[in-house]
């Protein structure tokens, strides 16, 4: 069982990221998952987060209590959800957008310039997919194949290839 939190602001694809991970796990990897979202009344720009509970059996309690993985795409999101992260958790951040505090406990911190990579690929809108590639490579919670199918399934058909390219770019980007 794993509890995952994505945090950022509206327009970054934070909720979409949760859906893709949930879909990858429960539709293509045959596990169980529940995705919940939280956003303000603004269409874009407001604080926004999504949470995914992954499990090998039916998810009963559907919320994150202590997260195993925190993916932070904004400073506000990081500040808000860092305390929720387990001492042994994994923290993934967009290094250009989030300034992190000194490490706590045994938290594993990994950073990636996901927005910059996405811009280099043509559009910052892929930043979340770059991050998902990175997430998949680091956490191995969902299979790469499952995630790729879920990405392809969740974007308009004419953008599938670009999204898969962005996913691969994030997947190949590894540094401690």
């Amino acid at each position: 069982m794993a509890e995952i939190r994505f945090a950022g602001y509206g327009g970054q694809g934070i909720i979409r990221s949760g859906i893709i991970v949930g879909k990858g796990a429960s539709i293509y990897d045959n596990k169980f998952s529940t995705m919940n979202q939280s956003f303000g009344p603004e269409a874009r720009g407001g604080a926004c987060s999504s949470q995914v509970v992954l499990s090998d059996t039916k998810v009963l309690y559907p919320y994150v209590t202590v997260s195993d993985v925190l993916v932070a795409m904004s400073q506000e999101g990081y500040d808000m959800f860092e305390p929720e992260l387990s001492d042994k958790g994994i923290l993934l951040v967009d290094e250009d957008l989030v300034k992190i505090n000194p490490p706590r406990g045994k938290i594993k911190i990994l950073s990636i310039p996901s927005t910059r990579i996405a811009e280099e690929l043509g559009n910052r809108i892929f930043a979340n997919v770059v991050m998902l590639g990175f997430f998949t490579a680091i956490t191995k919670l969902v299979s790469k194949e499952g995630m790729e199918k879920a990405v392809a399934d969740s974007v308009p058909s004419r953008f599938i290839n670009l999204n898969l390219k962005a996913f691969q770019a994030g997947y190949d980007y590894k540094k401690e």
Partner: protein
Amino acid sequence: MKANPRDVNTGTYYMDGDVAAGHGALAAGCRFIGGYPITPSTEAAETFARIAPKAGAVFIQMEDELGSIASVMGASWSGVKTMTITSGPGYSLMMEIIGLGAMIEAPFVILNIQRGGPSTGVPTKTGQADMMQSRWGSHGDYEIIAISPDSPQELFDYTIKAFNLSEKYRCPVMIMSDECVGHMSEKVVIPPAEEIEIEPRRFYNGPKEKYLPFKPDQDLVPKMVKAGDGYNLYITGLVHDERGYPITNQKEKGKRQQFPTRRLVDKIRLNADKIIELNEEGMDDAEVVVVSYGISYRVAIRGIEKAREKGIKVGNLRLITVWPFPDKKITELASKVKAFVVPEINYGQIVFEVERCSHGQANVVLIPHGGAGVHNPDDIAEAIEYAVKEKKKIRKVIEWKTRLEKFVFEGGYKLNK
């Protein structure tokens, strides 16, 4: 009768509860939704609007909620299955015509994805505070059916069931979900049409001149025809006789009024055992029973697990059908257990029904929540622990002080003396 393959988008999806309800409505054979989209139920309306045309169904965005519910009444008597979709503020506006619906025995479904209230309240966050309004919101005596799903899959399955119940008993059926379930994404399996059982409209097919629109069958429910098919129809909100004509004879009025309203109530009350669906677990040796519904049921599971880790024997009773209320079940349990614990996202609604049915035999603990969030499972675990230890019979509902309340109100408001 099986669902029509045209209406069923068979497949395995990852979707949220709202979207699942939209699919469920179409699969149930819904042909018309009149609605005024409102957060957090909008995705259900959007979904139906998107998938309806290819199945020959219609979504009309009406001018407001009064128009929405009124259009649903008309559609229902025109012979089609129909529904509206709303949340708190819209639900309040619909109350008067829900009473009309009960009176003219129009089968229809209302999906209420509850949000925090009162008034505009908290549009994007959850609440469970419309439960009593569902039962008592319109004036006069009537009964309704209310179901409370706890997952996207159930929002699909129970939307179909809601349509089936409304056709069977010809009464308003409310799907009382909440923002948490409406906006929660999980795997949803939409089965093939031949695996979906749907209840057809009960049409009258005898001679035209003998048709009495409000003459009940054995189960107290009358048969319908389609308005416009050449029958003499008089459909009114006034108290009416079997022909549907208002009862105007002043001498007779007092006496005859008893029949129609008594039947509106009894067609549900006398069939309650057939309507009520519950889910119970761990009841055999339970000392305390947690009674919950909707999202609070899933949250309670965690609290119950924690209490069981401490060796406490806790039963878990989920109200899938909230109205009609399972009086018999609660009374039966009250004689066996020490206490009921009721977590709900309001300041006490269903808990008072539990208290009523326990007839002073068991203590009743309310775990309140003001909305815009769900309970902390630790509060539920601690309330269970308290309930099992409490030796005194306490002759009122015991309100549990939750962490949130202690934090926000420092233990509660007090009046200055």
